[in-house]
Structures are given as C-alpha cells and as structure tokens.
C-alpha cells in the first residue's frame, strides 16, 4: 500500500463516488484542494432525482478550485471539479478513436487527435436505481484515463460504485476507499472492498490529507 503523499503520482484525473452522507464528507474534502492543483475531478453524488442539483453552486462557494456542473461535450480542464447533473449519467469521452473509411490520417484527423478528454451526458436507464450512476462514470473514466486515473469511493448506502472501482483497478488506475468504520453509510465502501484489493483505505483525516496534497500544475 503506497502512502497518501504518493497517491497523486502520474495521476491526471480523479473520479469520486458517494451516496448517503456524501455531501457532508465532500464538504470536508473538496475545500482542501489547493487552488492551483493540476488534476481534474469528476463527482457523482446520489441526490433525489426530482430536485435540481445545487451541488456545484454549493461547493463553488467553498472551494479554491473551479467547481461546476458538467455540460455535454465540454472539454476537460485541469484544476476543475465537475459534478454530474441530476437525472443524467456523466461519462468521460476519451477523445479520438481510430477511424476507418475516412481516407487515413489527414489534417482533419490531427485536429481530432489533438483533443483531450471531453464530458458526455446520457439519459440511459438508471444503474442500481441511480442516475447519475457511479459505475457508469468510473467505467468510462477508466477507459479514458487508464492508469492515470484515481478512483475514490466514499460513504454510500447502495452498491452503485463497487463495479466502477473494479473497472478502475482493471485499467491499472489507483483505487482509494473511505474506511467503512468512519463512513456515514458503510455499504458502498464495503461493497467496493469486497470486489478486490485497493491501494489505499483511508480514514477521514487521511482523506483530508490526500485532498490537501494534490500537486500543483505540471
């Protein structure tokens, strides 16, 4: 198990998933991020579907980094926290995939390749009764970032997120879980741990240290 301080080595982005008790724990963590930190953050917190999500506004006021609600097709910026809007899945689009039947690489293909990851929204069926779903975010981010992704599972009262963290592990990304004994709802962190080993199992205090130690620009 590597230490908290090494956790950000070679990491470009972090995905964070939480449900019951998530807003409270995030309000202890996100404000710790240094203003100039270089990673991008994608967050799914389960909130009641009918209510417009005010999470990004709530956190924007408290955080040094830029916090906003994810928009479809938006290019990913460093040092920014993106919240999934309520009632939509948030996915990370890797950028260009190999194309066939386009006459081979040309200038047009180069401009496509120059694009980094972008955000995508989807209104597919809920997963584990959840939309946004943590699994959907984590699986697409694992595909987009591979080993340069950190996946963090926090408190939660259902299993949405456990398979997602396993996908991060499979893509050789770094996996972090809030210790169930200090989570408001231990079901999600326990489910995540039951799917396989994780790199870091952290107390709330250690999580705060993790967020505070996120390094500045490359």
């Amino acid at each position: 198990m590597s230490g908290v301080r090494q956790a950000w080595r070679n990491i470009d982005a972090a995905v964070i998933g939480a449900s019951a008790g998530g807003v409270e724990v995030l309000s202890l963590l996100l404000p710790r991020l240094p203003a100039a930190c270089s990673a991008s953050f994608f967050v799914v917190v389960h909130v009641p579907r009918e209510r417009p999500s005010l999470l990004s506004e709530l956190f924007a006021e408290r955080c040094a980094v830029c916090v906003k609600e994810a928009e479809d097709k938006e290019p990913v910026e460093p040092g920014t926290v993106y919240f999934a809007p309520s009632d939509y899945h948030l996915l990370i689009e890797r950028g260009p995939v190999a194309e066939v039947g386009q006459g081979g690489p040309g200038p047009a293909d180069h401009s496509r390749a120059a694009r980094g990851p972008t955000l995508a929204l989807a209104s597919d069926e809920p997963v584990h009764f959840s939309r946004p779903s943590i699994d959907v975010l984590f699986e697409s981010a694992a595909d987009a970032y591979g080993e340069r992704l950190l996946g963090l599972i926090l408190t939660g009262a259902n299993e949405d997120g456990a398979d997602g963290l396993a996908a991060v592990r499979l893509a050789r990304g770094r996996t972090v879980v809030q210790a169930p004994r200090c989570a408001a709802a231990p079901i999600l962190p326990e489910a995540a741990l039951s799917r396989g080993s994780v790199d870091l199992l952290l107390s709330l205090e250690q999580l705060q240290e993790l967020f505070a130690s996120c390094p500045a620009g490359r």
Partner: protein
Amino acid sequence: MSNSAFDIELPLLLEAVYLRYHYDFRGYAAASLKRRLGSAMRQLSCASLSQLQDRLLHEPPLFATLLDFLTVQVSDLFRDPAYFRALREQVVPLLRTYASLKVWVAGCSTGEEVYSMAILLQEEGLLERSLIYATDINATALERAQAGIYDAARIGGFTENHTRSGARSSLSDYYTAAYGKAVFDKSLKANIVFADHSLSTDSAFSEVQLVSCRNVLIYFDRELQDRALGLFRDSLCHKGFLGLGAKETLRFSAHSGAFSSFVANDRIFRKEAP
C-alpha cells in the same frame, strides 16, 4: 494510450452495420455507445465485438435486437415539466400567430415526447391546425409510438409531470385504461405523422415552426451534432423555435451563432436571421 481490442473492433462493427443495414452510428458518442454494446454482447452471449459483428453480418434478424440496444428509449410524458411550461407560456403565444403549424419531434423513440406535445397543443387549442412530424430511426420504437400504449404503472408519474407543466385539463381525458395499460386517444394521432428519419443520413423534409429534440444530441459526437443542428436550422422557418434537453447546450457547436437563446433555463432557442 494504446487501443484495446474493443477500441479497434468498435469502428469496424459500426462500419459493418452501415454497409450492411445502412444505419449510421459512426458519429455516435463513443463512451455511451461502448457501454450499450457491452450490454448487447452480454445479452447475446458474444465474447467479443468481432463475434457480434460476425453474427450481425450473417443473421439479419439480430440487427433489430441490436438496434434496441443502440437507440435509447428512456422518456416520460412531460419529462422536465418546466420545459413544457415554458413552451406553453412563452412559445405558444407566438405559435398562435401562424395560420397552420408544423412541429417536428426528432428522435421521438416510443412516443412520450410526441403525445406530450400533442396534448399541450390540444390544450392550447392549436392541435387542430397543427401537423406533428414524429421521427426516429428505430422502426420498432416508431410502431410503439404509433400505438400509444403505455404501462398503467407509469401514469402516476405522467400525471404529476403533466400537472406541473401547467395543464389545462386532466391527463385522463386523453387515455383509456384497460388491463394494466393506458391507451392514448386516437384523436391525438390524427395530426401526427410517424416517419422513419435519420439525423445521421437523411435531409430536411419540411418547413416547421418548432423543432423539439430532447436528449438525442447528447448521444452524438460533435460532428454529428453539427449535422443535426444544421438540419434543424434548415427546417425551421424564420424565427422558428428549437427545444433541447435540460442539459443540452449549443455552446460547443459550429451552429451556436445560428440560434439565440429564447428561454435559457429551459433550453429553448430561436433561429436567428442568417
């Protein structure tokens, strides 16, 4: 990052589907497409996309099944009531000025958006002089849209949405409940034309005053989004209206200059003079 086998197989499969069945998914956003193809592989017991491609090329009936995975069919009547309320309160007064009205519900799937629109126009006294084009690429979904039959269990949610949209009548005026199903009224369908149309490959077909295309463009990549928005611009009359999904934006589109925001919060836009 190197491409996995799946990433290599994906564009090959889409190309095969296009050549064999003339459905063009090559401009669909990859992340959610991958997810849905993953479900299709599991459901159809294919170990790889190549295996799925092989079966698709040689077992034509399988394509209809795949189409259900690839086209998303998730909506409710009056989903996002605020959108319909904004149409009712801010767009309908301007639509009244037209002697006859054409509305295009693009990507209508199983019809929830279409019946919402028809009921709204009926309540506002406009349905009689309106023609609604309801288009989709999935023939099975279109048939279900045309049938207008939904599980009675969904009616509670539909009714609540309808009320919140500023309803002027009771939703129960528009359907008959029987055997756990709610069948929407034939009179609503008299002014609806259901048609097969692809935003990827087909062109504009009529001049309309309102296009409603919600939660469809999020499944397209930027190039295909631009194509679709170009079709909407070409179809809309001078100062016509475009309604998008609650989280859809024109901000990253090549056509952002062709439309101005009309009701910003509810994603209703208006065509600008060229």
